């Protein structure tokens, strides 16, 4: 991923800045700039997500894409955020610990690197809430 492509999504990836439609109050993360319900009468504004959610489903990845090979096995899940939307993210926990319905909160973590000299991708992972 080129620097510009990564850089322009930094607020979303680092701080979970998504969007919200003020017309219907629906929240979007990953962010959308067009509300599928209100369409052109929707008014989209930025919204900072609290970062709490519940695991809907998960897997443990043993065979990964090149960039993630060094991290296997790792837990990947779909998290339903308390504000409504769902997102895909890694869960920082043991692979035998994860389960459907588990409460999680977001943390800032390294996601991957572009080789030895490329940029380091940071972003959001989740950890179990005690």
């Amino acid at each position, binding site marked *: 991923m080129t620097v510009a492509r990564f850089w322009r999504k930094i607020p979303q990836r680092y701080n979970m800045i998504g969007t919200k439609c003020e017309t219907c109050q629906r929240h979007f993360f990953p962010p959308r700039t067009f509300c599928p319900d209100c369409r052109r009468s929707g008014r989209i504004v930025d919204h900072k997500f609290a970062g709490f959610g519940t695991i809907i*489903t*998960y897997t443990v990845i043993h065979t990964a894409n090149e960039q993630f090979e060094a991290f296997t096995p790792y837990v990947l899940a*779909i998290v339903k955020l308390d504000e409504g939307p769902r997102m895909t993210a890694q869960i920082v926990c043991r692979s035998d610990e994860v389960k*459907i319905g588990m409460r999680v909160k977001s943390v800032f973590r390294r*996601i991957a690197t572009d080789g030895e000299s490329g940029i380091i991708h940071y*972003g959001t992972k989740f950890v179990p809430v005690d």
Partner: protein
Amino acid sequence: MRDVAVIGAGCTRFGEKWSSGFRELFVEAGALALEDARLSGEKIDAMYIGNMSAGRFIEQEHIGALIADYAGLATHHIPSTRVEAACASGGLAFRQAVIAVSSGMEDIVVAAGVEKMTDVEPGASTDTLTGAADREWEGFVGATFPGLYAMIAQDYMHRYPLTREQLAQVAVKNHYNGARNPIAQYQQEITIETVLKSTMVAEPLRLFDCSPITDGAAAVILAPLERAREFTDTPIKVISSAQASDTITLHDRRDISTLDATVIAGKKAFRLAKLTHKDIDMVEVHDCFSIAEICAIEDLGFCRKGEAGKLTADGETALGGKIPVNTSGGLKACGHPVGATGIKQVFEIVQQLRNEAGKRQIDGAKIGMTHNVGGTGATVAVHILGRG
């Protein structure tokens, strides 16, 4: 709107074809289809070619013109169009060709699919396939295609009574069929043990739950039904064609374990054809992973949600069962050259309807269905075909 028929079909052997390049694969499939239709190339009015990612797999774009050129048609200047919808590229190319003939715009049209996947390292091909999902919000965080389907499986098994053995039976059945298909990549039968002892890829999916990386091409030739008998004694009628889309990400779906695009396209295909499930003699579904076949059988309406595992374990989806599924061996055993798969599904149904399917022939087959999925269900194409 005119009725449309398949008048010829051809397919390369699927597999890791180290000695064949992209061009050779396509030319081979095209020549087989033309020969089958007893047609000379000059008669072709237009071509639609399904291809997911020649740009990443062989660093070649502009596939429509390249293929027309190497098919010897550069001096005929026919329109040749590439169609892309990830793993549903072939199904959509077929549908575009059907629309072209049906509308009266063109008469003799080639619908083809081709993918050359083994010219890059396995890690690179896995990454290319991830582009069928959302690169920014799925691929970026470490999702793989097996990983996404594994999350469907995990959700499904949490909600419905599907055992690990029933899931494995999907692959066992597809390998049994593949062993009876001369174009299949894998022609060996396997057991439930084979699946359960294979390498873990993404829990709960193991290597034998996953379709392979494959090179291959397939082509069919379409004509107006009223002209079909000029070319063949066994025309196959395209009874209906339907296509639907859904969210690009799995996490945004209404229901993780239901492919709504399959439900919508399936219902529409049945409605347009004025047929019901009882009329279908066999169906080629998009089993990129074992769980995908389970979902497809249910989402197309062949049984209720939660029952496809038992249906499979009871042998009802096998050759000779109530509704034979993936008589070709499916993506699992026949192989999955992504852009070609949708056309290969049509090729299989054409063989069945012409009573040319050899050891995997369904007795008295009259009507068949194909179901081709892009990504985790963001695009679906469904076709119903019958004896013309």
